[in-house]
Structure formats: structure tokens, C-alpha cells
């Protein structure tokens, strides 16, 4: 789980953070303006490719993608 959190956090930082802002597992990503709704597409595809899962579009909501912790919960739901 920790490993997954770090992988997702590293992806978010590399993909979306253009300055030195700190990101924690609970930093609000979408409501905090770090990830825009357009960019959720690539995050979803990254997760699906990385963890060999399929996240239904209606589950890939801004709320479900709003922090590293929430994203991990979502991924775990489909890993089972």
C-alpha cells in the first residue's frame, strides 16, 4: 500500500506539479487545482495500465481522484 501511494504520488508530482509545491497523501488534487479535470484522463489510464485494472468511467469522479489516498482506495477496490 505504501509502495502504491509513493508510486502514485511520484506520478502526480512528475505529471502535474510545475513548481516546488509539497504534495502529501491527503493534498486535495482536483479541488485544490493541482490536477484539472482534463488531466484526470491520463491519470486514469496510468492507473489502469500500471495495475492492470479497468476503472469504470462513472467511478472516475473528481471526488474519487481528489487525493493520493483516495486514488489508492479506488485502485484497491478494483484490484480485488
Amino acid at each position: 500500500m505504501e509502495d502504491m501511494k509513493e508510486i502514485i504520488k511520484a506520478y502526480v508530482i512528475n505529471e502535474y506539479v510545475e513548481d516546488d509545491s509539497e504534495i502529501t497523501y491527503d493534498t486535495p488534487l482536483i479541488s485544490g487545482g493541482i490536477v484539472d479535470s482534463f488531466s484526470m484522463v491520463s491519470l486514469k489510464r496510468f492507473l489502469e495500465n500500471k495495475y492492470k485494472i479497468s476503472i469504470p468511467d462513472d467511478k472516475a469522479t473528481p471526488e474519487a481522484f481528489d487525493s493520493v489516498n483516495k486514488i489508492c482506495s479506488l485502485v484497491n477496490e478494483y484490484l480485488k
Partner: protein
Amino acid sequence: MAYSNKVRGSYQEILTGMKDAGLLKVERYIHSAQAADIEVEFPEGASLKKVINICANNYLGLSSHPEVVKAAHAGLDSHGYGMSSVRFICGTQDIHRKLEKMVTEFLGTEDTILFPSCMDANAGVFEAVLTKDDVMISDRLVHASIVDGIRLCSAMHDTFKHSDMAHLEEKLQLHNDKRLKMVITDGVFSMDGDTAKLDQMADLCDKYDAMLFCDDSHASGFIGKTGRGTHEKCGVMGRMDIITTTFGKGLGGASGGCVSGRKELVEMCRQKARPYLFSNTIAPPVVAGVIKVLEILSATTERRDKLEKNTKFWREGLTDMGLIIKEGDTPIVPVMLFNAKLSQDVSRDLYEEGIYAIGFFFPVVPQSQARIRTQISAGHEIHHLEKALDAFKKVGKKYNILGKSKQEIIEMYGM
């Protein structure tokens, strides 16, 4: 009456909030034709002030060129004022198709379709040529009109970091399973004045079987040795799948735009693009004016050559006096001030000195990237630029920003 006081009040509140936040856009009234020297009423009711314009997209100085004005008059006489119809009913004249063929030849593409504006071209093109099985991969700094067009299209959308080719390649790999892929960029980016790496992008598109789209609105007519645009500068003429551009900037400055590129894609726009199907096209006198513009630019590179010299003079002048500008070689030259209020103060003081240049700040540009965006024209003479440089020097001294680093300016004025 449905427009009750409550409704009115809610809008007034929004507008007041925008004003209080310094985000309300206030227009200045120009009483003369667009040119290097203009007469401006600002604020409303003030007496007219003669100023030098260094913030127009009039790159080639053709907005009020006598031959263009004469051609527009002739077009008005021969083809009338308007068509009162969309293209496919009874709104297509011989000169509309003539202009499409001329643009095709000028840009070195296969075919062209006119739109009422480039905003409309960008709003309509993606939906016309892509479906939900496809993907659009756009540079993160593309123009707002492209963002709107992308929103109207059912294809998946992803972005790559500005001009980051490694990141673009990652995205092409990520979406390699999609039916069609389109890479989307501006040719020259309007806020920073930098140029897309179309040569590298074309190679990546070949490698991953993706189409390449470029909005060349801030390039057509003057970028490249013969002014064909960013694709000429990057040596990829003939390799572009779609170019959109405007006739509202370098190419005469009136209005109108187009999609130019592969003939099947252009035909798809003719059949399906909603801003084309449901709106009148460019008015006859404007079409006649743009035809003249293309005749002038096809006959000689004199104007883009003069613009290149002016741009070099201007960039060197600003750098020599110790102002920070965005590196590059295009006539869009942002003078970086970083602080929003400073950009407004400098703009106001420049105006007092007879120089019309606008400050841009968040959300138009990123936080702490406030600037004065200057735009050079072939319509400028050296004396215009010298006067503008003198004004920048005087105002720069007043605010003690000459020779100062970004860090020093931020320490003085804040982010």
C-alpha cells in the same frame, strides 16, 4: 418581467467582485485606423491622446495598408456587403473559393476551408474529424479557442508539458491503442512568444502514426523565410495534417480564419463543422482584402523581412537597458515584471509617455509571471521603437527595475 432586481443584483455582485479584484477588462476607444500611430480615448470621455501602439497583432502593418483598403472597397462594390446565408445554402461566392485556393498554395497544404474566425475554426475542427475512439494530445499552453474546441469533441483528451517532447512521447505511448491520435499545438505561443518544435513533433507523429495539428495564428505571414509560418521555419512544410490560422492578425487584421490541411480533413469540416454549417462565412469585402494581402505577401518578403529587423532591434534595445524579456526571435516580446500591480503601474506610466502596451497577469498568465506583452510590427519605423525604448527606460528607472534580476524584482514588489 423576469429580469428582477434579485437577478440584476446577482450579476452586479459578480461584476463588482471582478472590479474589486482588478480583473474587470476596460476597453480603450481608438478613434483612428489601426496603425503604429493611433489616437486613443481613455478613460471614456477623456480627450484624445496620440500614442504609439505596441500591443496590436498587426505584425505586418497591413491592417490599414492602402492597397488592402482599396481591394476591400472594390470587393464591396463587386460582391456586396454580405451573403445572408451560410455557405452550403447560397453563401458561397467565387471569391470565397478563390481565397481558399490561395491559402492552400500559400501554406503548402492540400485544401482549405474558411471559417468566420479562427476561434470558430478551432471550435469546430476537432469534433468534425475525431470520435470517441480517438485521442487528442495537446500542449498545456495552447490557446483558449483550442481548449474550447477540445471540450466540444467526444474524443479522449490528454496534455503534455509545454514543449516537452519526452513527455509528448510518453503520452503517445500511453494512448497508442487509440484508433486515431492527434497532437495539438500552437505554432507561436501568444503569451511567451516561443515557437513549437514542429520538426520534432512531426517525427514523433510519424513514429506513432499520429496526426499533427498547429494553430499558426501568431505566425502566418511572417514566420519562416517566406512567411508561410512555423512549419516553414521548422522545415516541415507538407508534413502538417491541419493548420488553423486567422486573417485577424498578420494577414490583414480584419476577421476570419480557416482550417487548411489534408483534403479529407478539410472536407470533413465542410460536411460536419458546426461553426461552418451554422454561421455566415467571411464578408465579401474582407475576403477581397485578404486576397490582396496574400498577393502582396506572395510577391515579396519585404514586410516580414522588415518585421524581423524591427524585432531584433527591439529585443536588443530592451535587453541592453537591463529589462528581462522572454528569449526568442518572434515579434511577441514579453517584458517580465512578475508582480501584477507592477505590470499595471508600468502600463499606465508607459501610456502617459505615449506608449500603448498592456500588462498581463494571472489568470491570463501563470501566478507571478505578470508582464507587459509587446508586439512589434512591420508598420513600426525605427523612430517609433526608439521612442518606445526611451519610455521603457524612463519608467524602468522610476521603478528601479533596470538591470535587476527576477529575484530582486520580486523582493521589491512581491510575487
